[in-house]
Structures are given as structure tokens and as C-alpha cells.
């Protein structure tokens, strides 16, 4: 299971087994979706599988998660989402009411983004074999600008922005699943970022790279981009928004909010000169209200990511190999 935590074991599995098996130039873009030239148009194409326990949680459910996740992957290429597909794997005996709720929230999420689920598939597996419900979604989007948004666009000196507070999804899930009963209920941040990205593009913000935060949290996303781009990066701990409820829960659970999962947040890379414009757009949008500049891209190096605290001490961030194991002796 160490392979599932979004840590280094997962990355190694991808690098050693999955990527070589399918080797092709599109896969080498190392981004959330593949950008394809089709008949003179640039299309973004992505697919994702969703497995979550519990299926319903404060702030969302597996259906909303599956749709928003795919919309976000398209948005990270700066694409306007067009069409979605969905495949459902349902465990025998799964309550029909629950299924109806999930389908409704999928549809609502798709419509809110101006898209629709235009094709799909449904399978039923034996009782005890499916954790209730698995969902796989795919999406196609259209890229209507000339920017090359992706890890290759990152430049030395770029500002790193974060669209909002972090850690809510991971805390919401574990609190609900384990019945932890925190004093303040934390809601998942599960949301579709494609509208917000559209606003930024419309305003003319030259985005260099976008990455939505998922498993492994902010740390995993930035570390991945640092490794892929080969630039050292530095984040300011104080600038990273975390709500008191999430901070308190993380303190009790022994989690570092930087590593906790999100489903509706992204990091944005851009030249320092366009930061003010970007912040104006972000702050005007409900999903970007708490957006902040959280760091900057340093020189080309080994792809080291440092976290500077209030005292100026820079801690080096690292991806744990799987489940986080205490290192203190």
C-alpha cells in the first residue's frame, strides 16, 4: 500500500513500470493532461480513477470528486473543458439511493462547468470486491490560447502562487472515516478550478505552469515540479494559508498540512511582473479569495525545495517513500 500514498514509491512505480510500458512523446509532457494537435486545434485529454473512503464526506462525495478532478486536470493545461466520460464500477448491493445521489452530484458538477458527461459505462462486481463504488472519468478540453502551460514553462525567478488554503480534503476524509469528532467540522475543498483558470487567461495573465494539489498535498506538487523542471524552489511557510481548524486537526493527528491532500487548490507559476494582475483576478473569484504568493523559483539546480520558516531557517522538503514513517530517534 506504500505505493498508493502519493509518495516516492508511487512515483517509482510510474517511472519504472507505467511510463516505459506506454512510452510516447505525449506522455513525456509530464503534465496532468496530454496536449494533442488534432486538425489544427490543440486538445487536452485526461483520465483519472477515483477510489475514496468514505464515499460521502463534508464538502462532497466521490461523484463530485471524479468530475472536478478531471476538470482540474484539463484546466491545468489551460484548456476549456468540453466533454466528459464516466465509468462506474459498482459493488453488488450498493444502495440505489446512494448511487442516485452520486450521479446527481456528478451531473451538477459537470453542468456548473459548462460541460456534460456524454458517454459512459457501468459494471457491477461481486459483493465484497469493490468498496461500494469506483469511478473513472475522462475529459477533453480545447486550448484557445498560445501559451505552453506546463512544467517546461517554469523560469528562474518565477513567483509561486497558491489559490487558497490547504489541507481541507485530507482532514475532512480522515475525520469522517475514523469518526474523529473534531470541534470544528472541516469541509473538503473539492472544487472545479477550470472557471478560475479561464478568468486568469481571459485577463491576459501569462501563466507558465499550473498544478492542482491532490494526494501528497502542496509539498508533493511543488517537489514534482522542481524535479521535472530542474529548478530549486523556496516556499515561505508563513505565506501558506491554512485555516485554524485544519491546523488544529493536523497538530493533533501529527500531519504536516503541506503534505495533506487537496481537491480544489492549485499552484501557479508566473513572472513576478504579472503577479498583481493575477492576484486581482484570483481574489475576485470565490475559489481564489485566499490566494497568495507563497514562494519563488530559484536557480537551476537539483530541484531542491526549501521551506523558510518565520525565523529564516530553511527546511528541505522531501517526498516520503510511502506512508510517513517517523524519523526521529
Amino acid at each position, binding site marked *: 500500500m506504500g505505493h498508493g500514498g502519493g509518495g*516516492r514509491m508511487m512515483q517509482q512505480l510510474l517511472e519504472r513500470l507505467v511510463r516505459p510500458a506506454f512510452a510516447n512523446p505525449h506522455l513525456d509532457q509530464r503534465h496532468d493532461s496530454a496536449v494533442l494537435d488534432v486538425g489544427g486545434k490543440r486538445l487536452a485529454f485526461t483520465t483519472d480513477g477515483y477510489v475514496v473512503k468514505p464515499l460521502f464526506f463534508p464538502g462532497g462525495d466521490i461523484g463530485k470528486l471524479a468530475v472536478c478532478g478531471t476538470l482540474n486536470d484539463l484546466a491545468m493545461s489551460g484548456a476549456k473543458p468540453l466533454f466528459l466520460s464516466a465509468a462506474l464500477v459498482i459493488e453488488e448491493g450498493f444502495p440505489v439511493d446512494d448511487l442516485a445521489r452520486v450521479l446527481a452530484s456528478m451531473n451538477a458538477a459537470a453542468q456548473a462547468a459548462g460541460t456534460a458527461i456524454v458517454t459512459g459505462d457501468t459494471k457491477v462486481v461481486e459483493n465484497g470486491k469493490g468498496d461500494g463504488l469506483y469511478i473513472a472519468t475522462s475529459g477533453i478540453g480545447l486550448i484557445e490560447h498560445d501559451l505552453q502551460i506546463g512544467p517546461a514553462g517554469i523560469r528562474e525567478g518565477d513567483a509561486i502562487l497558491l489559490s487558497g488554503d490547504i489541507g481541507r480534503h485530507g482532514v475532512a476524509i*480522515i475525520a469522517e472515516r*475514523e*469518526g*474523529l*469528532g*473534531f*470541534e470544528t467540522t472541516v469541509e473538503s475543498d473539492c472544487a472545479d478550478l477550470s472557471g478560475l483558470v479561464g478568468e486568469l487567461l481571459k485577463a491576459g495573465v501569462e501563466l507558465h505552469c499550473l498544478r492542482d494539489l491532490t494526494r501528497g498535498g502542496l509539498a508533493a506538487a511543488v517537489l514534482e515540479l522542481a524535479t521535472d523542471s530542474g529548478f530549486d524552489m523556496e516556499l515561505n511557510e508563513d505565506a501558506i494559508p491554512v485555516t485554524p481548524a485544519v491546523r488544529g486537526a493536523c*497538530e*493533533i*493527528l*501529527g*500531519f504536516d498540512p503541506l503534505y495533506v491532500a487537496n481537491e480544489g487548490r492549485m499552484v501557479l507559476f508566473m513572472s513576478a511582473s504579472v503577479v498583481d494582475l493575477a492576484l486581482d483576478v484570483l481574489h475576485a473569484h470565490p475559489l481564489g479569495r485566499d490566494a497568495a504568493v507563497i514562494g519563488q523559483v530559484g536557480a537551476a539546480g537539483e530541484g*531542491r525545495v*526549501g521551506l523558510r520558516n518565520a*525565523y*529564516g*531557517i*530553511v*527546511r*528541505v522538503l*522531501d517526498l*516520503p*517513500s*510511502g506512508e*510517513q*514513517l*517517523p*524519523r*526521529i*530517534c
Partner: protein
Amino acid sequence: MQGVGMRPFVYRLARELDLAGRVSNGPEGVIIEAEGDAQALAAFEIRLKRDCPPPADIVDCIVQPIPAIGDQGFRVEASRADGTIAPFALPDLAPCPTCLRELFDPGNRRFRYPFISCTHCGPRYSILDALPFDRERTAMAGFPLCAECLEEYSDPSDRRFHAQTTCCSSCGPTLALWDAAGRTLAHGDEALLQAVERLRRGQVLALQGLGGFQLLVDAADEEAVQRLRERKHRPHKPLALLVPDLAAACELCDVTEAETQLLTSSAAPIVLLGRRAEAGSIASGIAPGQNRLGLMLPASPLHHLLARDFGAPLVCTSGNRSDEPICIAPDEALGRLAGIADAFLVHDRPIRQPLDDSVIRIADGKPLMLRRARGYVPRPVALDTDMPPILAAGGHLKNTVAYADGRRVILSQHLGDLDTAESLDRHRTTAELLPRLFGRPPRSVVCDRHPDYASTRWAESTGLPLRRVPHHLAHALACMAEHGLKSPVLAVTWDGLGLGEDGTLWGGEFLHIAPDGHRRIASLMPLRLPGGERAIKDPRRSALSVLHALYGEETPERLPTTLKSRLEPGTLSVLLRLLQTGTQSPECSSAGRLFDAAASLLGLCRDISFEGQAAMALEAAAERGGEGDGTIYPMPLIDGEPKRLDWCPLFHALLDDRAAGVPTSVLAFRFHSSLAAAVAAIAVAESIPTVVLAGGCFQNRLLLELCAEQLRHAGLRVYWPQQIPPNDGGLALGQIAAATFSEEFLTCV
């Protein structure tokens, strides 16, 4: 050995005995060719070993007859840098008595010159660029000798004959005092006098010491001490003191003969000493809650001058920001210690090797190294197997690296915790430096089995063949290597925790180490850590976990007031839920966490700010309990693979007695003696005649002495690390030792 005045000594001895020939330093050591009368040659050999200068250590002396060539006179020849096996290098040496006399003699031309040294003393490893140890390969290369110094250097009858570090105020390094903005306020002796004046006013002084910067403040000034603590973000950890001389040390602490030897040794380490009850002239914030003080005598002429001019104890702590390595360059210190130091006393002799002050204590009458750096590094440890060149990456905290080539292991100085960019860089440069100084490029690397230690990541990045050594096996093997022990051995490896060989967290292990493999025969019963790594920094969580093991669902009602008042109800219910479900609560057979739990249940610690704080508080409380009352709480051994040492009855008894009003100090003592009794019982049952005690828990003097006493009483031989830290600072040595075994040996059976 080099830098101890070996060649001048040989020269004088040969002249005295009327021998002809020559002496040189080569990569293989000191080479002497001598010819003359047979009786004189025999006397030469005897006196060479008997009378050699005090810091020298003749490791091996090979005598070979060669044909006489009718040589005339005796010559000291320049060093040769060729050859395959690198020579030894010496650690830094505190001023010798003769240099000290000169330092304080107004008639001497080096009166109050802070860089005085001779063939018997002075900086060594801290200024070393390359071997052999000659001025041009040290930080003294930038200071050509003046005519007067050159004359002494060239005169075979002078005590500075061939003294590589010699200098004087006209040719050597100079002091300067800077303000916090880096503006020079004064030079030379005036800088020193003004620095002392600032200390008197309660200012924090950053001092460029031998192996790095130190932060000094008046130890009697309560406010100044608090200011330093606040600026360094170091609320509780005891601060070491610099005192001018042994008499001053004896005013503050009771100093035994063994402790005197350590204090006054050429290594001049920080020694943990029992504080005298009436010692009142220092601030209460120096070592809160401790019965011990860490004291050190001046390690350099500069420290002698400063300590004597100030005339009272000074706080002297490493010049770093929390979690970062010690600063070594003046400009670097100016930047990184900004906001901490009010002034900087610096000089222009660069520090080449960063070296923290070593920390050591006496346990069971013998030295027990706690932090090994200045004064001890790079003294080698001998292996009984020939190793191809190999590097060991060490642990993650209190990191050291080690390098072996042939039979010799060089364990690096304490490098600190590998969490910051600076410490990662220092780890890497040290790992690259050791082979360059002491041998050939490494052909393989060894590291811990923990995949997320920064040291493991570094080892993986070298691209060299890599072996991963189980954490607790490395602890055991380090101790065996230090003492040259052969298996079979019963190794009691107790620490905070390390990754075990079954993928769970270990830390209270009994390993049977046989020639062909090792086996985990027993272990402490696992304890859940609610909040994982967070629990390690919060002893209340270990306490809660113990209570949950004792009382299950009834825990909330059984919560002692010491704990109840310190946990918010919301937090408490979530932590209990974690314990019930096992969520984010890994199991861990750690001895260190039991110390945390006991300290917390006895109300001895609230929030901790440094590793080992709870255990130290428990040890201090037990020491206040005197000799103990002989009560041993039961710790039954439950059958299984491995057998489990059950601590539930121990804690039941502890809590019952606490409720019955038994004083805390007595309970703390009983906790220690019960663990020691359990260790002895297992050792006796296994009947392996040699027992090794290793791991960070054995920094605890009381636990160590009680274990040693009981094991010896049972007729067993008992060893523990003495020259090498028992904590993770010794892991790298154990990793090297592990590489001498087969892969099957390294895998637990």
C-alpha cells in the same frame, strides 16, 4: 601521528644518543633511519616509545635492519605527500602548560597573544586542508613566519622546532571586534578587552572559536541568559558553561578524579558534572530542572584570555540557529546570527573543519561520549577486518558519517540533524572530504534501512554499490567495533526508535548476535504512538497510550490530574479515538517512549523542546532519590517470537504507588531499577556471557550504571560505547562494521 612534534622529538633523542640518520613524515607515518652503536639504537627504540610527546599515540612501530651508509649528523626532512595509505591527523589540542605560562607572562613576546601554540598544542583538524600536516596545507598557510618565529622553527633545540602552527602577533592571525552590522570596532587585544566589557553589560557575544562560532553571555545575568534563549528559540535545553580553570569548575560542581582528567585533557570537552547544592552564582535559567551542569575549560589561548579576563562563568553554546549547523566563517555568522548576537569577536585564521564542542560524561567511572567533535575527531577506530574503501552515511538526527580504508575507521564529527539545506550540504562535503584526506575514493556505501533518512537519500544518490543496515544492529555493531568484541553477544539496543527489520518501529530490542547471523530474541511490548512523529515531541501522548493499554475504555476516568490538566478535552477525545482505531498511531517497541510516558505521568515535564528532555527530567528526578529503596516493579516476559517484555504491571504499580503518595523521586528511581532488573533477567536467561548496551537510552547514566551493576553481579561481561556516542551519532561506525559481514548476517532470522 602528525602535528604532535614527533619529528623534533626524534631529532633531539637521536642527537642525545649520538645517532646519525634522518626522520621524515610519509603517508605511511613517521619514517626514521638511524645508524650508530647497537646499544644506542636499542635505547633509541625503548625511549622512542616511552618518552614520546604526550598527544602522540604510537599505533604501530615496525623495526627493520638496513645497511649502515656512514651517515653524518641527523636531519629532519620535509614531508612527502605520495604513497597509498594516508597518515593520521590529530584533533585540536588545548594549550599546553608551557604555552599557557608564556601567554600570561608579561615578559614573553607572545604575552596575551591569542594564537600561541607549539609542537604539543594548538589547532590541528580544525585548520587542516590536506595531509600530511604541514603549515602549507593548513589555514596557517596564509601567515608566513616572521624572522623571529622562523628562527625558533628552524632551531632544533627550540620547543617550536618544526611547530607547524607557530606564529606571533607580528606574523600570525589578528582578532577583530565587530558590531552587529559588521563594522569593525577594535583590533587585537583592544578587541578582546572591549568584548569582555560588552559581556559584562549583558550582551550576547558571537565568538569565532576553534571549530566554529560560539555564543557567549554572562552566566550570572538572568536576563541576559533569557535573552539568549529567546533569540536562539531554545527555551529549555541546558546551556554549557565556560569557566576559567579547574578551581572555578570545582566551585560550581563536585568534580571527581575521572572528571578532572576529562576537563583538563587536551580535548577540553564539555563535561556533565554534578551541581553543588550551594553553587549559587549562576542564573537559574542555565539548566532548569537539572542536577547537572555542562562545564568546559578553555580549549584555546583565546578562550583562556576571555575566560580569565571575564573572571566568572560564561554561557558558551554553539553559534548556530536552531536546526542549522554551526557557523564557521565570520561573514556567514554575521548573517545567520543576526538578531542573536550583539557583537562578533572574530579573527582571520579560517576554520576549515566545522567542529562543535564535544560533550561527555562519566558513567560507571568511565567516559561516556554524548557528542563527539572537537578534540576527538579524527582519532580513528581500529577494525579487525581489512575493508576496501567505504563510506557510511549515518542516521538522520545527530548525524555523523564514517569512512574506512583498510583497518581504520574515521568517524566524522557530529554534523547535527539533516533537515536544513545547510546541514545537508555539510553532510555531503564531509562525506566527500574524508576519503580525500584519509584514503582512496570509496567503492561502496552503507546506510540505514530507513528509506526517508536524508542520509539514505544521499547514499542512494552516490550511485555506488549500496548496503542498508538495520538501525539497531548498527547500534550494537558500533559498540562491538569500539571494544573489538567478537560474537556471540547479547545486544540490548534501546533508543527512541528506528525502522525495524519487520517494517515496524523498534526501540527496545534484545538482539542475539552470533557469528553467522543475528536474531531478535526479545523486545519491549509495542506501544501505539497517537499522531506518529508528533507523539515523539509530546510525551503526554506516550503517557496516554500507556494508560490506554492499561485501562482501555476507562482511560478518561483514570486520567491522572497531571495529564488531565494538560490536555484539552477535544484533543483528548481525538487522541483516544486514534488509539482505539489504530489510525495514525503506529506501534513501536521503543524504550525511549516509555521514559516519556513515565516522566509525563509523574508530572515531570510539560511541553518539551528538545529530544530526550523527558528522559533527562526522569533521570534527574531519580538522582534526587539517592540510592533508591530496592523496590523492583514486575516486568514479565511473555513468550513469542520475539518474546515481549510487558510493561503494564510496571506502570500499574507506578501509578498505584503514586496514588499512595510515594515521592516522585523514589518512583523515578524505581522505574530505572525495574528496567535494569528486567534487562538483567533476560541476559541471565539467555546466558550469553557478553552483553552490549547501546542506543540513545544509554546516555542515561543511572540506567546504564544500574544495568551494568546487575549484569556484572550476574557474572556477565558488559560493554557500552564510551569513545563513540551510544546515540545515533555512533550509527555510521556500526554501518561500516556491518559491511564486514555477509548479507545473510544483516538479515534478521
